[in-house]
């Protein structure tokens, strides 16, 4: 198996003869305190080494990354978008495992089931063939889980922390513990969070914005031989009584159980560098709830539970060969989605329907990637992904339900391919030029194919699926450069995506709405093309020692074939931060600004213009050494001017939290 595949790869790429060492992946030898992120091979220096960062939610970490903007429906479980691409256009995984949220209203993006305390790093790719595996049109996010480390300096190590925020009376409690021997290690980490209603700027309380959750991560590693590892990981995340003020319903619970077992072979002195195989299973159980809402908001009481289960495996290997660094992966997974709704009208029979009629999707994929070092200056990375996607309905009730909308077979089979080429050119010690060109494709999502009257609060329409959707494809190019010297680092990047068969909701006449008060019914359709372009600018500057200035800027502009602005596209956003870190102390001040977004198409996509804003945050911290342990105390004030503001992607334009004083304590041992 290995040899023919390798031979195939060698034939398919140009062949050169320069040996070079590979610095692709980072392995942290210490535990429990680092989350960093990588964008398409460009590693960002920002290490969240202070444990207070671990008390933040994953959402707060993500929204600091250039090009990432969050769709907000409440104070919990925000949904990441990459350069304005979201949902099925991007591919989100946890440690390479496929997971799919169980909520039909996108209340549970999978980023809500993983905590910074679980993670080693966040990998981010904007192009279909970036860091991510599996086909997509817009790249993706991988949340790499922290592993227990064998042979650590201390047999027992750990961390405990607690935080309090005045706004929403939010508390965070985290803990982590690791036991490490030379051949065996086990680690556990946990988070418990709770918050009441938050208060927006100028003292406005946002009702139904509370949340409660806990998260537990377990990792065990056993070395069969020094270069053969057996690993078991388990993650459980449960949220309860979560308010979604921008939606018509809240959530009574959102539970995820995520388990995997891996075998990792890392030979030394061979061309094969590593070979990792993993089997995994995850189950997500989600229930929407309207029982806490006042009667006038609930014309008919309803229950809307949903489940998602995914079973999969992957096997990936990496090789060195002279100046080539090769990667090949086989992946297979199967996901089942079930979502239903029971309505209880007064004085009439209860009504039951499937809103996502038992969709099963099975995917087989092969990824091939090569990184070729051409001399000291050029790096080329061709890549190819082929996915075979089967979609069908796995219950009779699901098929009967869809007979309401469709005739003929409901099964879908798609063969999807992505291909790309990344190039990097080191001009001199300071200047680097990088660019990429790729072709991406995705099959329509389960929701886009088979949705059965799913309500979208943003445009107030019920959505139905379209089983005849063609796959959405993109041709994507980006060009950037990096200037790096002792104190200054500047990295601008421009990008463009041209989509074909872009999938949008289009009004369907003659269909009556299912949701009381909805404006009409939309069906997913392919429009001939769409365009998305924009750029990012990342810069850091150290004017003096102990001083650090960072600026993160991004903008996206999207339009469909008729020139209408695409929905949920973030306007210009800028985060600027100054840090001063004398020994033991740390101080920072930052501003977050977003410009006005009036590039919207209210008539077509139901989106309204947004006002711009600027908010300011400040913080200070200090480390205390207590014996061999470290105590970190940190205080911050967010939105110090108590500004009323929202971001463009916030559903219903609900104001975000006003002034908030946060205190965090943590002890590392």
């Amino acid at each position, binding site marked *: 198996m290995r040899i023919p595949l390798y031979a195939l790869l060698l034939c398919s790429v140009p062949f050169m003869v320069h040996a070079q060492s590979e610095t692709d992946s980072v392995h942290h030898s210490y535990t429990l305190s680092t989350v960093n992120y990588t964008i398409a091979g460009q590693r960002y220096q920002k290490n969240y080494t202070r444990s207070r960062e671990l008390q933040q939610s994953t959402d707060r970490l993500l929204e600091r990354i250039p090009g990432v903007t969050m769709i907000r429906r409440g104070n919990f479980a925000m949904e990441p978008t990459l350069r304005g691409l979201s949902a099925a256009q991007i591919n989100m995984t946890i440690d390479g495992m496929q997971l799919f949220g169980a909520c039909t209203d996108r209340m549970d993006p999978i980023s809500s089931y993983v905590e910074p305390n679980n993670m080693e790093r966040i990998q981010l790719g904007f192009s279909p063939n970036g860091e991510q595996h599996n086909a997509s049109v817009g790249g993706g996010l991988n949340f790499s889980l922290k592993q227990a480390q064998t042979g650590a300096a201390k047999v027992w190590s750990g961390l405990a922390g607690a935080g309090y925020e005045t706004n929403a009376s939010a508390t965070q409690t985290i803990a982590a513990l690791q036991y490490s021997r030379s051949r065996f290690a086990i680690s556990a980490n946990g988070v418990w969070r709770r918050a009441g209603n938050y208060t927006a700027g100028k003292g406005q309380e946002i009702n139904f914005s509370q949340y409660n959750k806990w998260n537990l991560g377990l990792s065990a590693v056993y070395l069969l031989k020094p270069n053969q590892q057996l690993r078991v990981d388990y993650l459980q995340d449960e949220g309860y009584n979560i308010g979604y003020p921008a939606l018509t319903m809240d959530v009574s619970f959102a539970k995820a159980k995520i388990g995997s*077992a891996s075998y990792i072979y890392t030979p030394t002195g061979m061309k094969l560098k590593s070979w990792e195989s993993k*089997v995994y299973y995850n189950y997500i159980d989600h229930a929407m709830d309207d029982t806490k809402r006042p009667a006038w908001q609930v014309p008919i009481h309803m229950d809307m539970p949903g489940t998602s289960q995914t079973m999969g495996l992957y096997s990936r290997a990496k090789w060195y060969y002279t100046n080539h660094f090769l990667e090949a992966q086989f992946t297979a997974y199967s996901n089942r989605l079930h979502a239903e709704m029971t309505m209880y009208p007064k004085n009439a029979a209860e009504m039951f329907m499937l809103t996502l009629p038992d969709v099963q999707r099975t995917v087989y994929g092969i990824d091939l990637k090569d990184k070729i070092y051409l001399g000291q200056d050029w790096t080329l990375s061709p890549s190819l992904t082929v996915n075979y996607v089967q979609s069908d309905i796995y219950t009779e009730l699901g098929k*009967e339900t869809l007979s309401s909308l469709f005739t003929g077979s409901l099964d879908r089979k798609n063969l999807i391919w992505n291909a790309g080429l990344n190039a990097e050119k080191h001009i001199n010690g300071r200047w680097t030029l990088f660019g990429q060109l790729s072709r991406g494709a995705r099959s329509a999502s389960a929701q886009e194919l088979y949705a059965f009257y799913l309500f979208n609060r943003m445009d107030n329409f019920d959505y139905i699926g379209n089983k005849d959707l063609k796959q959405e494809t993109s041709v994507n190019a980006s060009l950037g450069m990096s200037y790096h010297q002792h104190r200054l680092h500047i990295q601008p990047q421009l990008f463009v995506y041209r989509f074909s068969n872009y999938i949008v909701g289009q009004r369907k006449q003659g269909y*009556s709405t299912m949701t009381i008060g909805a404006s009409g019914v939309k069906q997913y359709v392919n429009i001939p093309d769409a365009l998305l372009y924009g750029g990012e600018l990342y810069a850091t500057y150290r004017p003096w020692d102990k001083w650090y200035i960072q600026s993160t800027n991004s903008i996206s502009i999207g339009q469909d074939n008729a020139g209408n602005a695409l929905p949920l596209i973030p306007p210009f956003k800028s985060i600027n931060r100054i840090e001063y870190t004398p020994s033991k102390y740390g101080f920072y001040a930052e501003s977050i600004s977003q410009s006005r977004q009036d590039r919207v198409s209210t008539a077509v996509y139901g989106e309204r213009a947004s006002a711009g804003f600027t908010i300011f945050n400040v913080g200070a911290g200090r480390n205390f050494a207590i014996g061999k342990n470290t105590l970190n105390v940190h205080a911050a004030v967010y939105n110090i001017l108590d500004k009323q503001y929202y971001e463009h992607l916030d559903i219903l334009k609900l104001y975000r939290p006003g002034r908030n004083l946060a205190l965090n304590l943590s002890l590392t041992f």
Partner: protein
Amino acid sequence: MKKIFALVCVAIALCTYTSCTSKKNNPKPDIETPAKSQLGTANTTDHTITLYADTPLLFTGYNRLYVKVQDATGAVSSTANVSIHPLMEMSTMSHSAPYEQVSYDAATGLYSGAAVFIMPTADDDAWKMEVTVNGQKVAIPVTVGTFPTKVISISLGSDNTTYIVSLLRPAAWKVGMNDVEFTVHKITDMMNFPAVDNLSLEMTPEMPSMGHGSPNNISPVSTGNGHYKGKVNYTMTGDWRLHLKVSDASGTVLLQDAFIDILF
């Protein structure tokens, strides 16, 4: 070692998968048993006559009826001349109901027909089914109950004729697209209820408790013998009302809304 690892992986995967899939069964409506129920029996000089229906109790509206004719040896007769006639005897008068004459069905060995009962059995008002076999008439008393939802609509049309629109109840409704069939009869006198063909029926389903309808319905069209066949789309379970606007061939609206109620 790799073999053991693979086995462990498979075992873990199987355990977790089965433990979570054996969970819920969907609340699907029970399917009524298709076995026929005996309603009564009577003897002529030559034959034993047994009357059957699809359910133990007859209901107002359209009911399929079956007659079994056996000779003295118990053998089922297929060549007898059999007819039925529903009759309600009230204290001062009697009347019939729309019905479909029986014919022999070789597959079941029964003579099958139908009756559209226009009212339920009451204290002094009893339904009976007159069955005539080779010129000999017997009467089998039957009890007719009121169906829980409105499956028959009797109303005066704009042409001053009373029309009877009745639903052919299927064994079970299902979510999604269903075949739907109605009969239309009119009242000419107390004993004559001829079937009416070639009307135009415009069907609009609605969920009264929510006020919404459903897409892709096919309004019933005349198939002869007073029958109209179409397709109805139930997007969910619950209460449904099928609004029927009935017009004649010239387009004159006879019945504005002869609605039928469904619950499943």
